[in-house]
């Protein structure tokens, strides 16, 4: 990624999408480099899905430019779609076909047929732990299996980049972990992925770099660690004042030169490791320390929680 010679696999320049008066994406810029997992983190309505729909050319671009593998999405939409794999939030699986047929049928749209398609389907089903279900109907699969099948389908065609729209939404924690584990293995194998998520944990675990989005704009960008360090420091002190002492505790903190952020019943102060020593002795309050997260970053940037809709 530090290699400036490598051209980006996806490049968005002042990308914009309006639906009448509603501005879904407000002129964003970003670049995804080959071999990385690039995340778009933000709540519903941030513009993540719209951006992905523009990439697969099922949503026309209002203004700005969008390139995949050097191809202009507006000018050569079909060639772009030849090069990408898409996993939408809804699985888009074919209930009239079995697991293997879903893969083979999809591969044909990329001119992958016959033995090549059969072999690749076997390989993908094995990789995604579905080889024992290749003859099953879609209705017989659990939610996690369906999601893994959509991943297998996207990777059937050896795409240059895979676009994942919220890959673990709606999955139970076990299935989610399984999906994460497989995405990690795919990343290790060198795949390039653009994913959206509203789970900060997912972004933190999987993404090499990410942008934080809200209301159609990119608020900040960087590696998960950099973003946390930049916007929330390494440590977060969660301070819960005893009854009636809220204002006193707050002014005590502020007199120490701390930026105090309200979080409902408690308040937080971000800072480096030293915070632990400084805030250990606050009167009339319980102080708890924890590692800062992307959730803190998002809250600090937008004033609201990531899971807000």
């Amino acid at each position, binding site marked *: 990624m530090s290699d400036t010679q490598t051209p980006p696999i996806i490049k968005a320049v002042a990308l914009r999408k309006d639906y009448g008066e509603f501005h879904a994406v407000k002129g964003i810029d970003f670049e995804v480099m080959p071999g990385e997992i690039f995340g778009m983190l933000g709540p519903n309505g941030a513009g993540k899905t719209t951006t992905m729909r523009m990439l697969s050319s*099922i949503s*026309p671009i209002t203004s700005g430019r969008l390139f995949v593998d050097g191809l202009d999405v507006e000018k050569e939409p*079909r060639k772009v*779609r030849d090069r990408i794999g898409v996993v939408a939030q809804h699985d888009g699986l*074919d209930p009239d076909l079995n697991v293997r047929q879903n893969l083979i049928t999809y591969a044909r*749209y990329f*001119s992958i047929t016959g033995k090549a398609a059969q072999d690749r389907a076997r390989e993908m089903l094995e990789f995604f732990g579905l080889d024992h279900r290749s003859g099953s109907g879609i209705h017989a699969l659990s939610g996690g299996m369906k999601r893994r099948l959509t991943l297998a389908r996207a990777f059937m065609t050896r795409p240059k980049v895979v676009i994942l729209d919220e890959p673990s939404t709606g999955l139970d924690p076990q299935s989610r972990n399984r999906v994460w584990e497989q995405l990690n293995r795919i990343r290790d194998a060198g795949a390039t992925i653009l994913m959206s998520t509203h789970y900060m944990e997912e972004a933190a675990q999987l993404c090499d770099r990410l942008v934080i989005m809200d209301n159609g704009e990119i608020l900040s960008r960087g590696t998960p660690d950099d973003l946390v360090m930049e916007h929330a420091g390494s440590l977060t002190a969660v301070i819960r004042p005893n009854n009636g002492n809220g204002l006193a505790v707050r002014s005590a903190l502020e007199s120490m030169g701390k930026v105090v952020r309200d979080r409902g019943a408690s308040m937080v102060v971000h800072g480096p490791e030293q915070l632990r020593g400084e805030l250990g002795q606050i009167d009339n309050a319980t102080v708890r320390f924890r590692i800062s997260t992307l959730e803190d970053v998002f809250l600090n940037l937008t004033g609201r929680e990531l899971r807000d809709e």
Partner: protein
Amino acid sequence: MTSLATKTGIDFRPSNVYGVWLRHWLAFKGGWLIDSTAIVIEPLFILLAVGFGIGRFVEGIQGDLSYQEFVAPGIIAANAMWPALFNCSWGAYQRMENHKIYETMISAPVNLSELAAGEIIWGATRAAMTTAAVLIVAMILGLLSSPLAILILPLGFLVGLVFGGMGLVYASIAPTQHSMMLIFTLIGTPIFFFSGAFFPIDSLHSGLQPVAWAMPLTGAVHVARGLSTGELGLSHLYGLLYMIGLASVFYPLAFILLRRKLIT
């Protein structure tokens, strides 16, 4: 395929049409036993009930045809409408709205012009299956006097193209799943009964006759009857051309409306 696109300036991949068609064939093979009852049994019931049930009370109807001979080609051609209409309206709506399969296809390098062609040609394939089944039975029963009657099979395919296109147009503008019913009740059924399959158009009130002739099935019924008796004239050619014209209007209309609905 790329070369075709660069040579003609038209970006159309026939292999994708085949891909969409093949998807339907695979799905059909998965449940053929159930589907084949609709293909064979329903039209057969209509043929037997109308031909031999009602037909018993009907005296010679057009020239020296028995009612069974009159109604058989009509029923065969008219029945081709249902599977195409069903596949491309109700079925298409399910695939598009409930299962999001169209979105999967167009996120892959399939264009809506290819998707629509695959859907409609599959609808026509199903129409041809039904046509073949009933055609064979009618031939065995001796209801079709001319060997030209075998040409009712490609005619059934053409009926499928027309109604597949019509169904897809409707699926792309229908606001809700529930409203899909209307294409069967308000459009399919009147067309089926007033296409001349069951009684001659000229027995209708003279004001209604042009309406009946304009219906998209009437031409096919007329041609089927000509093929079954072997007496063909210019009117049959007009009927055929009308059907071809309808098919070539519905198809582009379908994919333009699909684009409007799906590309947003």
